[in-house]
């Protein structure tokens, strides 16, 4: 928790509170006959050019003064202004809450707080920008992001509120769907869910693969861990750092998506061995540090820590060279102490005593390690994760259906590597064949282009897939190829909201 960012927030919070105080003062003065009525307003800075198209509500019918436009309440003869006033109050209130709770919300989140009031997403987009402009800060300083930043890959089917179903290619990371656009998620056949701390990480030791810097999430996704693991099929998810509300909501949805008569697949977290890694996992599990009652409903208490733990990186160390061990920075140490001091979960005798110990060990030895160190092991990151999943009891044997399927596949192929056959494949083929949803969601998604590239290759793969007679192995090869293509193009994408990897 870097202090300078807290200060930055405090400034914005103060600005919002000043507006509310002004309104409150005006309300109190209402009984004072000497103060003219119609004094309740929110000042907005005028923009030189209207940045939006005709649909957007215009502010410029109000009287400008000193470069500001006042949105007043009540506004005689201007009925739309009352609505505008309400919209602004609502957005400012939500921003204030997000800032105080140190959570990041997307414009979409704000819209869904009150769709009846906002009417369209555009309203929110417009006023968020205007408020940022008025305060002279970036939108990000208001803890508002443009879109979801999380990625997900794996075997699940989304059920939309309008009754349609969307099947996501399990092999390709997709932007996380806005939870409001999802009614339910079919995760039958999923044996595990893995939350990965980050997508992109420049690896200091140089080449992780021949392609240069690689990300753990994409490495695992392209190695097809979620489909070809000995630990069964799974779902992988990342928020690229500290999770936003959408990613947390989505994980929360996933965690409750199992059939009523079965138990939820285990949910694991794979993080760096450093204070931020633990803080990120803690955000998924317990919410942000300042306990936010609002987001408590997004907590996923069942998360188990898969690694990277001190034992994973230190076992061989203390003996040989520093296999990927790094020194803590001053900021890391402050963060660790801050967490020990402030997090309820890390107090003596509290829920996360293991985390408390791990932070203390980091401080004692002054070491940390990134999850990329796992790549040095024999089976790479994938092998390591697989071992851990199996060791944690996520085994094929637990799911008889899967076992059968895999045996079948084994016989057919006579290969060691399991193809991406899953129990409910036929179901989703039927459901999605007519309307395959290919493109990623989210406006302005930077991976849209890449997804379009993928479209072609996937349609090819799909054709092969739909053809009942086509041998599975061929399909697998097709998929493999497309993954490689997909990965190369996707790797170029700038991950949105990277600056927000720091919890405020």
């Amino acid at each position: 928790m870097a202090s300078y960012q807290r200060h930055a927030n405090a400034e914005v919070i103060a600005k919002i509170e000043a507006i509310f105080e002004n309104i409150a003062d005006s309300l109190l003065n209402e009984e004072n006959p000497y103060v003219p009525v119609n004094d309740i307003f929110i000042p907005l800075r005028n923009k030189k050019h209207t940045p939006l198209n005709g649909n957007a509500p215009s502010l410029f019918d109000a009287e400008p003064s000193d470069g500001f436009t006042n949105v007043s309440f009540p506004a005689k003869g201007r009925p739309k202004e009352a609505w505008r006033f309400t919209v602004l109050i609502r957005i400012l209130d939500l921003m204030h809450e997000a800032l105080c709770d140190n959570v990041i919300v997307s414009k979409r989140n704000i819209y869904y707080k009150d769709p009846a009031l906002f009417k369209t997403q555009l309203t929110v987009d417009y006023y968020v920008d205007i408020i940022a402009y008025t305060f002279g800060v970036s939108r990000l300083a208001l803890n508002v992001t443009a879109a979801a930043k999380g990625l997900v890959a794996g075997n699940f089917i989304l059920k939309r509120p309008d009754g349609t179903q969307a099947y996501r290619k399990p092999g390709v990371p997709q932007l996380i769907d806005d939870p409001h656009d999802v009614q339910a998620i079919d995760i039958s056949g999923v044996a595990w869910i893995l939350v990965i701390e980050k997508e992109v990480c420049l690896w200091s030791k140089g080449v992780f693969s021949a392609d240069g810097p690689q990300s753990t999430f994409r490495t695992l996704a392209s190695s097809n861990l979620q489909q070809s693991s000995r630990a069964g099929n799974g779902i992988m998810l990342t928020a690229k750092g500290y999770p936003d509300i959408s990613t947390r909501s989505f994980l929360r949805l996933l965690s409750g998506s199992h059939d009523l008569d079965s138990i939820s697949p285990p949910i694991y977290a794979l993080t760096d061995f450093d204070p931020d890694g633990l803080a990120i996992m803690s955000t998924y599990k317990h919410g942000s540090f300042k306990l936010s009652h609002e987001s408590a409903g997004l907590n996923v208490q069942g998360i188990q820590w898969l690694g990277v733990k001190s034992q994973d990186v230190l076992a061989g160390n203390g003996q040989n060279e520093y296999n990927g061990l790094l020194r803590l920075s001053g900021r890391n140490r402050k963060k660790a102490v801050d967490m020990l001091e402030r997090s309820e979960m890390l107090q003596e005798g509290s829920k996360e005593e293991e985390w408390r110990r791990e932070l203390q060990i980091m401080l004692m030895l002054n070491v940390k390690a990134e999850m990329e160190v796992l790549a040095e092991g024999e089976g790479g990151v994938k092998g390591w994760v697989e071992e851990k999943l199996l060791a944690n009891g996520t085994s094929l044997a637990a799911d008889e259906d899967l076992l059968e399927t895999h045996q079948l596949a084994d016989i057919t192929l006579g290969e060691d590597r399991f193809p991406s056959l899953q129990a409910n494949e036929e179901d989703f083929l039927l459901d999605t064949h007519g309307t395959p949803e290919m493109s990623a969601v989210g406006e302005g998604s930077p991976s849209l282009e890449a997804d379009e590239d993928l479209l072609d290759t996937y349609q090819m793969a799909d054709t092969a897939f739909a053809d009942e007679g086509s041998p599975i192995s061929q399909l697998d090869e097709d998929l493999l190829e497309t993954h490689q293509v997909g990965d190369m193009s996707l790797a170029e994408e700038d991950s949105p909201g990277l600056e927000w990897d720091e919890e405020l």
Partner: protein
Amino acid sequence: MSKQYLTTHTIDHAHPTDIFSLSTTASQILSSSGSSSIRVHSTNQPDFPLFQTLDNAHKLGCHHTAISTNGQVAASVGFEGEVKIWAVRDDGRWSERTKIVDDNKAGEIWSIALSEDGQYLAATSFDGRINVWDNLADGVKIREFETKGSFGMSIDLSVNGRFTASGHENGGIYIFNNDTGRLLHSLPGLVKPVRAVAFSPRGTLLAAAGDSRVIALYDVSSGDQVATLTGHGAWILSLDWSDSGEYLLSGAFDGKVKVWSIEQRTCVATHMETEKTVWSVKWLPKTGKNEGFATAGANRSISFYREATGG
């Protein structure tokens, strides 16, 4: 010639979590851990009973403790960066006397050492400074030594109070003259983090060890490295000299504890309770002719060893 030590007693689960530090007086052993309390066990009774618990000493856990050679003053430092000075009463019970918080926010008090009479406390900081406080004068800072800014991981004061030695993360080892306040030696380092430094009882030798897995012995007056003790296979986290200066005790990350003969410059005994990290090792007062020591670490227990008789 090797020596044999036998486990005489183990205090199982002396703390609920890793024990990071041990300190001893003539009749007591103080232990601190990742939990908030410091425990005091009696060492002059065969079953090492719990004598006192200093509750809520350090809320975030306590990583280092120290006791003055005269046994009258103890100091403890917690992960929050605060030092507490404890004084012993006539009945042997400890009570808090003062607190010391480094006024420089950029720093973080880490390793600590007390002078023979407990009047002076020396401590390292994360940014490489070494500070000395006067406990009698309400914790006034009286000296501040600057180093190159590398994390000061270990510190010791010579028994005669003349020298301060510090070990740093970058491998640097410094000896300061406390009388003049000047740097006496910048020792040819161990390159890797130095996690333990200890003056011999007469103050003539300095032992230093850490991630290089060797123990270097330096002549304090000349600054020359006079010996290198090899044998540990893992990071060395703790060192302690026997009262006579004949033996050096060391504990390592892999759970191994070694006794070194200074005269022979060799390891004379190796012990291992578990493979779990040994964070701290300390000699115990002699009973009769036999030396004994205590070890503690990640297994949360305190083990007591005594030299085997006969032989």
